[in-house]
């Protein structure tokens, strides 16, 4: 078995090699793939951000939220409304969406999180269910356009980014969505990583592990839970903005705006690895891959596969992932990332510094 010391030359070399490989992959996709593939990655980035945001609350702090689809929707609608009705430039809608979702998130969390137990799960479930109804509400139609949603979130011209050249049409939009999604993903990842690898992150995990002990150590449990919920809501709203900007459409029955969205974020997070930084990334990529390889399985397949999936004309990815979840929970309770770590530890171990 190989042993590498943390911070040693070899450790840094491995790190640099990994980063380089990822960088090459990231540049390869939008320059060498067809538009559909680029679009798939763009939507993966969106889902990863949403799963990451949920990870802060559920994976690290142990507070169950089934309401993140509503924050995704708040982000999506904020962007659509500001661009359509108020002529905002798309870039600024991120800030507005983040602030609004933060406030809404804190307002939902504040009364609920004071009480221990499953109340948060129930309240957030209600939020997820009520949110689409609210969007369809007649009295709000002036704002949300009711059941038909907002589908005119188009820019006449895509912004010109120095290294991308001029982007045009459907292809251009996919490439733009890809890079924008990547940028937001990187920022969201750095925010999450910064939080986790700090005094704040330790207090989140402490709350998850033992709330009483965390309080005795001086952690203001309620305040921490409320703030992390707000930040999580805010990151999820960024994913919603991205979705609106890349597809140009938001409707009350968009799949990530309804309860199904919350469940998809949850699946991605848990299958990838709850309470790990890379878990949502792995989970998101696996989900989008599954979603695309199984699309049309119900209508196009013959034989046993066709028989099993004949009832659906949509992609059964959520169902498959749900079943996979049960298997994963049995054999790898820390998700794919945990499984990978366990296997790789047989080959290589990283020795922490200062031993």
């Amino acid at each position, binding site marked *: 078995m190989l042993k590498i010391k943390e911070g040693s030359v070899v450790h840094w070399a491995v790190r640099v090699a990994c980063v380089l490989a990822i960088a090459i992959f990231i540049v390869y996709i939008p320059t060498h793939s067809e538009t559909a593939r680029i679009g798939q990655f763009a939507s993966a980035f969106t889902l990863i951000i949403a799963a990451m945001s949920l990870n802060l609350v559920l994976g690290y702090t142990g507070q169950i939220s089934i309401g993140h689809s509503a924050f995704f929707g708040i982000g999506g609608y904020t962007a659509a409304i500001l661009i359509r009705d108020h002529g905002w430039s798309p870039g600024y809608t991120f800030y507005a969406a983040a602030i609004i979702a933060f406030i809404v998130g804190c307002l939902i969390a504040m009364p609920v999180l004071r009480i221990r137990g499953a109340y948060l799960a129930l309240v957030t479930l209600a939020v997820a269910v009520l949110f689409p109804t609210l969007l369809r509400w007649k009295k709000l139609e002036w704002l949300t356009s009711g059941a038909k949603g907002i589908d005119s979130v188009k820019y006449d011209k895509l912004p010109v980014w120095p290294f991308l050249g001029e982007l045009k049409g459907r292809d251009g939009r996919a490439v733009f969505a890809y890079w924008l999604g990547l940028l937001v993903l990187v920022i969201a990842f750095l*925010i999450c990583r*910064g*939080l986790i*690898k*700090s*005094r*704040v*992150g*330790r*207090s989140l*995990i*402490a709350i*998850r*592990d*033992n709330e*009483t*002990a*965390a*309080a*005795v*150590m*001086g*952690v*203001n*449990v309620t305040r921490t839970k409320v*703030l*992390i919920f707000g*930040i999580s809501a805010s990151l999820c709203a960024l994913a919603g903005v991205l979705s609106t900007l890349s597809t140009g459409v938001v409707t009350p029955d968009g799949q990530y705006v309804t309860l199904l969205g919350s469940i998809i974020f949850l699946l991605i997070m848990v299958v990838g690895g709850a*309470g790990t930084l890379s878990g949502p990334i792995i989970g998101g990529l696996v989900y989008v891959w599954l979603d695309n390889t199984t699309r049309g399985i119900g209508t196009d397949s013959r034989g046993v596969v066709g028989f099993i999936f004949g009832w659906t004309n949509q992609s059964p990815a959520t169902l498959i992932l749900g079943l996979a979840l049960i298997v994963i929970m049995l054999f790898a309770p820390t998700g794919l990332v945990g499984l990978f770590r366990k296997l790789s530890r047989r080959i290589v171990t990283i020795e*922490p510094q*200062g*031993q």
Partner: protein
Amino acid sequence: MLLDVRDVSVRFGGIVALDGLTFSINQGDICGLIGPNGAGKTTMFNVVSRIYDPFKGNISFDGQNLLDVPAHRIAELGIARTFQNLALFPTMTLVENVMVGAHCQGSVGFLRAMTRIGARKENHLIAEKSRDLLRELGLDKLAHHPASGLPFGTLKRLEIARALAASPRFLLLDEPAAGLTHSEVDELADTIVSLREKFNLTILLVEHHMAMVMRISDQVVAMEFGRKIAEGTPKQVQNDENVIRAYLGGDV
């Protein structure tokens, strides 16, 4: 007088766990708190930690009314504790557990964590301090081991290290010797005395190992059914007839 407990009563439904308990501890002393099972010793700890609210009475710490202070500000005042049945963070390593103990010593909040302003430096300082404390309690070899699946005695020592990370003035130890062998108990007693010298501590010690309590305490308070039944030097309490009766004539 560092801690002054006046007429404190705690009720759980029909059970009176503490019944007008009054005692005080002088700065720098080790105070043993003894009593049969269910006497209310742990409840006393939980009142000082502000986990339970007494329905009557007063507690002052260094002149400040503790009942005005919320639970998460207790550590800041310099009060740290261990738990009878362990309250560790099982998914964290030993050193991370101790680092959480230093929470009240740190200052990086949400904004600074997200922007990484000063977060790295603080991590380094706290990690270093935590490793020193693990060494102090002979746990440095296990620093990066998860805090689960280790022997009870080891985890109890980890709790002491975690409590010390808050740089407390007042340390509450709830049965630190539980599950230790005779020689380990002696060793622990020496450790506690030396920690008091080194960190200038005042200690409230709950323990069923009478020999240990009597050896290292400056003052002993005996309880039964939530009430104080005796108080004084170890010798006085040992010979108190109420105490002997409470322990059913056992060798106190």
